[in-house]
């Protein structure tokens, strides 16, 4: 009897998610965003991740690198998800100052009532543009896993280009941090079709590793889970 549902699910959902290898070397994401990879990654595609592109090294329940390649003025961040969690959509605006863009990412990452703590936000060159970087700690509501993450972003010709990486604070964030930093440093935005090349390409960002922040947040537990929606089995 129980296999029945399994079969139904397979028929309906086969082909709904897939993984593709991202090869070493130059990779283009979207029309005008590219980066250099020193080693391969896994690109996981499934409905609901738009407008980002999701890469992982260890699997989607462990680490996530999300790439935004040209979010347009008025575009909704992850609309599918907003509908499911009955929270308001967040929309990118071309004239958003840095603090509001970061607040937009924060809002996406706290939709499941995860705890988000901003550790640092400052200007940084990114992909040849004047951009920003931010670092954060997050406690994933679903399983109380403590994560660390960072993001780089820049707005070019009214479009947002960004990378956000998040992984467990234990083992995995330190393991892959440098690799993701290298990708961020190699990122390039090419000019929109028909536009002149940018006047000057800024040097790649230089920054110190955040490693483990000194102050450790204890794990969140069931108090909070009282209002969380459980994983259906």
């Amino acid at each position, binding site marked *: 009897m129980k296999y029945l549902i399994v079969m139904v699910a397979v028929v309906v959902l086969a082909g709904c998610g897939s993984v593709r290898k991202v090869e070493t070397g130059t990779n283009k994401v979207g029309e005008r965003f590219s980066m250099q990879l020193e080693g391969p990654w896994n690109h996981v595609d499934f409905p609901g991740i738009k407008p980002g592109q999701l890469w992982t090294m260890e699997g989607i329940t462990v680490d996530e690198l999300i790439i935004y390649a040209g979010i347009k003025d008025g575009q909704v961040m992850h609309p599918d998800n907003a509908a499911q969690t009955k*929270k*308001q959509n967040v929309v990118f605006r071309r004239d958003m100052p840095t603090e509001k863009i970061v607040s937009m990412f924060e809002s996406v990452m706290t939709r499941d009532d995860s705890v988000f703590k901003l550790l640092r*936000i*400052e200007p940084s060159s990114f992909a040849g543009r004047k951009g*920003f970087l931010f670092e954060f700690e997050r*406690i994933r509501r679903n399983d109380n896993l403590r994560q660390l993450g960072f993001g780089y972003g820049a707005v070019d010709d009214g479009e947002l280009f960004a990378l956000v990486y998040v992984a467990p604070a234990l083992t995995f964030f330190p393991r892959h941090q440098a690799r993701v930093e290298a990708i961020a440093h190699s990122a390039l935005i090419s000019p929109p079709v028909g536009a002149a090349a940018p006047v000057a390409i800024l040097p790649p960002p230089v920054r110190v590793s955040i490693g483990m922040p000194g102050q450790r947040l204890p*794990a969140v537990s069931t*108090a*909070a889970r009282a209002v*969380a929606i459980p994983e259906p089995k």
Partner: protein
Amino acid sequence: MKRRQWLHMGCAVCASLAAGGLLAQGDLDYAPPERLARPDAASDEGGLWAMMDREEKNLRRSGLLLRDEQLNRYIQSLACSLAGEHCGDIRVYLVRTPQFNASMAPNGSMQIWSGLLLRVANEAQLAAVIGHEVGHYLQRHSLARLRDIRDKAALGQVLGLFGIAGLVGQVALNATAFAYQRDHEREADRIGAVLMHRAGYSVEESAKVWDGMLQEMRARDGDGATVSPLFATHPPTPERRDSLSAIAALLPGGSAGTESYLTRVSPFLDDWCEDEVKRHQFSESVALFSRLMVASPVAGLMQCYRAEAYRLRGADGDDERALSDYRLATRDGAPLAKAYRGIGLIERQRHRNSEAAQAFRRYLELSPGAPDAGLIRSYLESA
């Protein structure tokens, strides 16, 4: 969803439809039961307790728990003054979550969320909420609801197999579940009022809790999340406020305890306001801070956070409203770092560079180690 529904069943300051009805002095002679003994582990009540014990263990490990000893002692003793001889069976946990909620588990563990502590204005209002929860505990409402939900869900599934008849059946079931809960809420309200009256608090204050929630709900942003998970299913109504007012008329006197309350919670207000704004339900936050500003010793702080909500909402005219609030909040030179940052951010967007620079400088003076200090410094340099 299902789990949420179930866990809240315990529960909480469920907004009821408690109608005014006729109240006589006799209804208010409430005599609490003897202390509740631990039920047999094999019974359904025992199962419920075991589950709540486990939840409580997880709660004790939670990073969201407010562990400040003084604050915990203060609220635990307030609960004790209401619960009388049941005091030893009731354990209060303060949880840092920006929504209006309190809940009582059948095993005696009570959660109070910081969003509720931010919203009540005095000891009497908090006593009204805690008294209501103690009422659910004393009357063992959770157990009744567990049995009720279980029976109805079983019946609903069977009815559900038969098309339209099933549909009608579902509607009928929902209606009975609603009526059932309404009785519990009415009873808990009545017990809460009696307990707070006996502890020397003004029962009139209890109606004000619901009045405030009503104001906030009217400000909801479209279909956004509500200020309380509880109101998603049954909104607070004017009737509830009115019936509490009616009870208050029968139980006059008592104090509000405004100053003693604010003294105890003021060290935490900044964090709780910050959490409130982070919900991204800005219109609700504006309504809340507007209410908390009225005749309050902490009006400046609340005005600063109302400005934050305006600035982040960013609708037409919000920048002007935010600027005006920030300036009023700091007019006596109050050291509200966030207000100066807010002024700077808005002035910067308007290209009023010297105003922006002045405000940023003050912000960095007051808060040199802020996470966004690097960003603000760069704004200052480019101003």
